[in-house]
């Protein structure tokens, strides 16, 4: 009895230190939001959330996705307003996909990331996407009854398997912004009329926390090479006797900064690419392989050069090339670190590509 009382007292003390006990809530009455889109609204923000298709019961038909939208002065106000629109408790803990409208990104996404970082239910684990050419709310609603979460989930899985563009979580982007002062976010654009499909549109480049521009096409491929992503890509090379298709399986870029005195003199990039022959008519001999390697190196070098040119124009080292290179000269790097964005814009770049055909 005495021990029991002591234990109870200890439990009370512990609980007093922990604040109050969590409150119970039934999952059956919850609407689990999977996707959130945030846009600028007059005087505030518009938040749009979608649940994805909901099962009505274990043996019943699926219910269509629940899409809620509210515009308020603040994010928290909009989220609270969404609670009032649903007949279920709206639970934000399962938001896996976060879409940011282009206009909001131009103004800065830091407040959004801060809110996600501090909210009890939300977190920085959600995949972050920039919506180009449409509002994020429209993109969220684009999935219709099925929602867009399965499409975005597929894109993320494809990215892990190396068959789609790089994906970034809100946490990764937030870390980049804090450490590098810039970051890149995959961009999407709805294509189609009523039930639009979200398609990849390169990467949005963030400087500070605001959108500085987009890298698309070959420049986007170049950024993937710089970021060391899987960069899976099929390249077709016209050799002297046949046409050959090659699949890029991996890429890894090393950067090295050379100084003249204490000032950066040149940024040397060495990109090692591994490729595998996927289509060919005749087995390639040594000469043919050399020709193929040279062709691939030229193309990848052009991509890198294009990406670097655009990034330098934007003044954003979002791939962290300076920081990586600075590890070889820590003392000198400390001296230029503060002004690196300026240096990055004007330091000459030497690019070397080594292709290995497996």
């Amino acid at each position: 009895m005495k021990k029991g009382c002591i234990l109870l007292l200890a439990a009370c003390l512990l609980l007093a230190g922990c604040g109050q006990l969590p409150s119970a809530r039934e999952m059956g009455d919850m609407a689990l939001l999977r996707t959130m889109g945030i846009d600028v609204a007059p005087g505030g923000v518009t938040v749009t959330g979608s649940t994805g298709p909901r099962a009505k019961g274990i043996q019943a038909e699926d219910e269509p996705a629940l899409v809620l939208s509210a515009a308020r002065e603040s994010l928290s106000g909009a989220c609270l307003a969404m609670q009032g629109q649903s007949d279920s408790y709206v639970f934000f803990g399962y938001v896996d996909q976060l879409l940011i409208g282009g206009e909001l990104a131009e103004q800065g996404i830091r407040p959004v990331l801060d809110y996600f970082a501090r909210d009890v239910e939300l977190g920085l684990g959600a995949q972050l996407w920039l919506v180009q050419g449409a509002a994020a709310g429209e993109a969220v609603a684009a999935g219709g009854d099925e929602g867009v979460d399965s499409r975005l989930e597929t894109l993320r899985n494809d990215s892990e398997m190396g068959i789609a563009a790089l994906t970034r979580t809100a946490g990764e982007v937030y870390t980049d912004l804090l450490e590098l002062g810039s970051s890149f976010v995959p961009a999407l654009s709805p294509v189609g009329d009523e039930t639009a499909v979200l398609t990849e549109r390169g990467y949005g480049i963030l400087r500070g926390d605001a959108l500085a521009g987009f890298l698309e096409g070959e420049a986007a491929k170049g950024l993937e090479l710089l970021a060391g992503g899987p960069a899976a890509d099929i390249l077709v090379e016209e050799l002297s006797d046949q046409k050959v298709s090659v699949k890029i399986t991996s890429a890894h870029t090393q950067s090295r900064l050379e100084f003249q005195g204490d000032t950066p003199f040149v940024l040397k990039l060495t990109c090692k690419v591994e490729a595998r022959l996927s289509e060919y008519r005749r087995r390639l001999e040594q000469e043919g392989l050399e020709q193929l390697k040279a062709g691939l190196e030229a193309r990848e070098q052009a991509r890198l050069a294009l990406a670097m040119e655009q990034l330098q124009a934007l003044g954003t080292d979002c791939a962290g090339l300076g920081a990586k290179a600075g590890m070889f000269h820590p003392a000198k790097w400390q001296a230029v670190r503060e002004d690196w964005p300026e240096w990055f814009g004007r330091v000459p770049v030497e690019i070397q590509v080594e292709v290995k055909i497996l």
Partner: protein
Amino acid sequence: MSRQSEANAPHPRQEPRIPGPLSLARLEEVFSDCVDFSKREVYLHGDANRKAVVCYVDGQARSERLNDYVLRPLAQDPMLATAPESQLFDLMERGALYAHGANRETELDKVVFALIGGSCALFLEGRDDALIFPVATEEKRSVGEPENEPALKGARDSFVESLRTNTSLIRRRLRAPELKIREHIVGRQSLTPVDVLWLDGIADPDTVAQLERRLEAIDIDGVEAAGNLEEYLVDAARSPFPLMPYTQRPDRFCQGLLEGRVGLFADGIPLGWLLPGTIDQFFKTGQDRAYHWLVASALSVIRWMCCLITLLVPGLYIALVTFHPEAIPPKLALSIVAAKREVPFSTIFEVLIMLLAFEVIQEAGLRLPGPIGATVSILGGLVVGNAAVDAHIVSPAVLIAVAIAGVAGYTQPSQDFGNALRLWRFLLAILASLGGLTGLALGCAALIYHLAELESFGVPYLAPFTTGTRVPRGHPSLFRLPLPDMKWRDGPIKTQNRRNQR
């Protein structure tokens, strides 16, 4: 002292229990109103002047032995008719009667208990002593297979209700004279023989002495159930966790003795206890040493995992689904939400009711005869469960969680330990209902605290995990090493000889 308190006061044992001089008349007085008490008057070799009276308790004595070893020589041996009367008793004691033992007793107390034990008492006229011949019946259940601990690869004998049969099963396996067996009588009315077994030079003499002291201190009416000994011998009878592991299998019992533990048998109870009890004993099976060490280790790890599963799954389900849904993977959460829709009860109520229903079905199945019990289990478990899910009374996720916890509990080799886990499962589920993971964590902390304070004959219950720095460790408890590598007996049980092989 009031009359009430006088009636409730402890009464000292009377020694000797039946006082007074030994005589046939006194013996008949003691056994008055005992329909099974019998006496037979016999003329020695037909001589009407020489009479002997043989007394016995019908049913305790075996009639063939009584007839052949005692009555036939008395009636037919001519020597008994011719020998001087003064030498008759000596002749009978030293071989004229054919029983394998003969004791001359002069105390009524001893004669009475010898008759109850199955002996017969022989009285001659004019003498104040009696000869006791052991002619006890040996009617008992034959040695069968251990039903609770089935053997797939190993010995198939099991203990029976007869104490001497059980000790002989052990003696046949451990033929060393170092196997010591000491007997105590427990129970005022039952006078149950209880034997303490140990291997001299291996077991801790202090544990033996402590056990014997506790046995001597037991002052109860009878030993009719295992609890009559267990609850009097353990240090913390209030704990639901068993502190005295038991087995039905002689091979496992012998293994325990070889490890340095002290064995205990009680007449009428077909199992043997091994002391001191530590938590790892309840996770071991008789098959552990029969299987390959890798398989035995894997099975051991599974049993420990199942212990955690049966203990935590219902509480964890309540905590996650009700308080911390964000910790559930999204796809699982969506399945749970889908399953939970249209169910009218709260998750907490559902889980607690399902746990209770599980216990009810199990109890009903146990109390009924085999075939009916199986029918009740099928009817209760499958039909009612399925119907409840179809009718949206219970969510299938809850049913699965409770069923997993229940089935995992059946992997426990010790029923007593499994029962303790079942009780704590309820407690943890209730705590999780009150405070989510916080409540569950507090409950687990309380459980560890409770286990850590338990001791069995001076040995910590969690000894395999919590021995002090100065106590030599044994072998890992979660795994079984290859037997040639298991060279040491467990240190915490204070064995006198730690090394068990070259």
